[in-house]
């Protein structure tokens, strides 16, 4: 397991995702204004900022889930493996297979725990039989849910789990498709402290092999789990850097005010 040991000056990193001059307009709102940043590969990056600052918009732009919102206009580039994901020829299904997402409110499908996790691999890879069993078990183990559900995961509905378990089921469901990048949109905001701690441990454990981007309102959490932090305000990226710097020694006054709790 890799822990986020941070040095004052992080080693040079490779970018998993590069955002370049990204603008998002909703019907009458300029939600993201010329945002450019690199998401370092194998690291945890947190997006923080007051409500409505554009951090969730940016997150949902990274797997093109914003395409679904009527009236949303997006321009700029998001490079993934050297390709702009907003290119016309982008294979959306492949993109979302490689960039998984966990939502604020756990949203398991109304089917058994097994079926929840098996759906992705079945649809993407046509996996079945023993291989499928293996993939489902591995995903549940990696999401730290296996021990709690191994006795009845084939029969029990995903909806019958507790809130924290449901969120870990959603993580398992995503892991089963083997994404490279994991996007999390306030994954703990509806959870109790113990469930939150479990998700945080998971985030740290998944880093290295995966690149993680976590939107959070919980500043101590961002400081605990992330290697890098980006601070947004009014749709603009105010500051982006190693978490230790952003939290302890930010270069912008507004970042300082926000992380010390003067507003937000």
């Amino acid at each position, binding site marked *: 397991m890799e822990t986020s040991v941070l040095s004052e000056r992080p080693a040079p990193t490779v970018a998993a995702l590069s955002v370049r001059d990204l603008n998002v307009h909703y019907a009458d709102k300029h939600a993201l204004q010329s945002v450019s940043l690199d998401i370092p590969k194998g690291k945890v990056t947190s997006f923080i900022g007051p409500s409505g600052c554009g951090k969730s918009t940016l997150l949902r732009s990274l797997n093109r889930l914003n395409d679904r919102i009527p009236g949303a206009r997006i321009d700029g580039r998001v490079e993934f493996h050297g390709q702009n994901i907003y290119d016309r020829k982008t294979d959306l299904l492949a993109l979302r297979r490689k960039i998984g997402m966990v939502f604020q409110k756990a949203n398991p499908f109304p089917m058994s725990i097994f079926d929840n996790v098996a759906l992705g691999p079945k649809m993407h890879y046509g996996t079945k039989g023993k291989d499928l069993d293996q993939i489902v078990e591995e995903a549940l183990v990696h999401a730290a849910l296996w021990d709690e559900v191994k006795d009845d995961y084939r029969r029990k509905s995903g909806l019958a789990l507790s809130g924290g378990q449901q969120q870990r089921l959603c993580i398992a*469901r995503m892991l089963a498709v083997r994404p490279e990048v994991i996007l999390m949109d306030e994954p703990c905001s509806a959870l109790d402290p113990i469930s939150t701690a479990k998700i945080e441990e998971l985030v740290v454990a998944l880093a290295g092999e995966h690149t993680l981007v976590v939107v959070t309102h919980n500043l101590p959490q961002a400081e605990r789990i992330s290697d890098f932090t980006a601070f947004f305000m009014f749709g603009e990226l105010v500051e982006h850097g190693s978490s230790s710097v952003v939290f302890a020694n930010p270069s912008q006054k507004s970042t300082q005010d926000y992380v010390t709790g003067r507003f937000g």
Partner: protein
Amino acid sequence: MATLGSIPLPTEAELGRRDRGRLSASRRRLALLVLLGLGTSLGILGLIGLIVVKGLPAINWEFLSSPPVEGMTAGGIWPMLRGSLLLMLGTLAFVLPVGILSGVFLAEYAGHSRFANLIRSCNLALAGTPSIIYGLFGLAVFVLLLKMGTSLLAGWLTVSLFALPMVVLTTDNSIRQVPGSMADAGLALGLSRWQTIWKIVLPNALPGILSGVVLMTGRAAGEAPPILFTAGIYYSTAKLTYDVDMIHKPVANLPYHLAEGYRQGGVIPEKIIWGTCLTLMLMVLLINLGAILVRSRMRWKQAS
């Protein structure tokens, strides 16, 4: 000026009078509601009770399974029961796929475009159209124009058209009630739009859709006007057959039997009419019961 309490409150005695007045008004209104509720329930129970009391003595296996004899004045109602069951099954087979797919199209693909809302308004208007209009439409188009004649086929199509708008609306509603987070989860997992609809959204909405479909089919099966000119037949001594050819022949059925039986005044003994009445009611009741069971079983399976 703006201090709290600058306007004096009524005295305690005055407040006490007001409170008693509010309480007694509340009790009077509650009593009225209870009375209305009891009245309605008693009315419905009375209606059902009357049919059960009058109809039950007529019903036995013999009555349900044998044809009428002696010029409809005696015997059972099997041909009518068979006709109603056939009409219902055929309607279900047509309405289930067409209605559900139309509803999926409306909710998932047409969304809230002007076109989709026009279709919704049309469906709403059609759902409120008296069933006799469907009967006449069926006569004009299926029976005469398309030369199907008075037949089971023409009846299926007419009853299906009658049931369709309600099924489309129910499906559309049930699907739009599925939280958007479900579709988000499917798409974010990399499922295609169709896979997301088929594997996630539709199963979520299915309990609601199915109960809507079955309730509507049950209702349609009890309607006389749609089959009056398209499929119904009152008196027939022809042998009942069960082959492909039967869809070109008219069928006797329960609502038509009731309507004609009553109109012919006195030919059919009252006992048989009450028995037919109860049979029709039980048939619809059983269908609704089935729908409720299927729905609760599905909900239970999805959530536990």
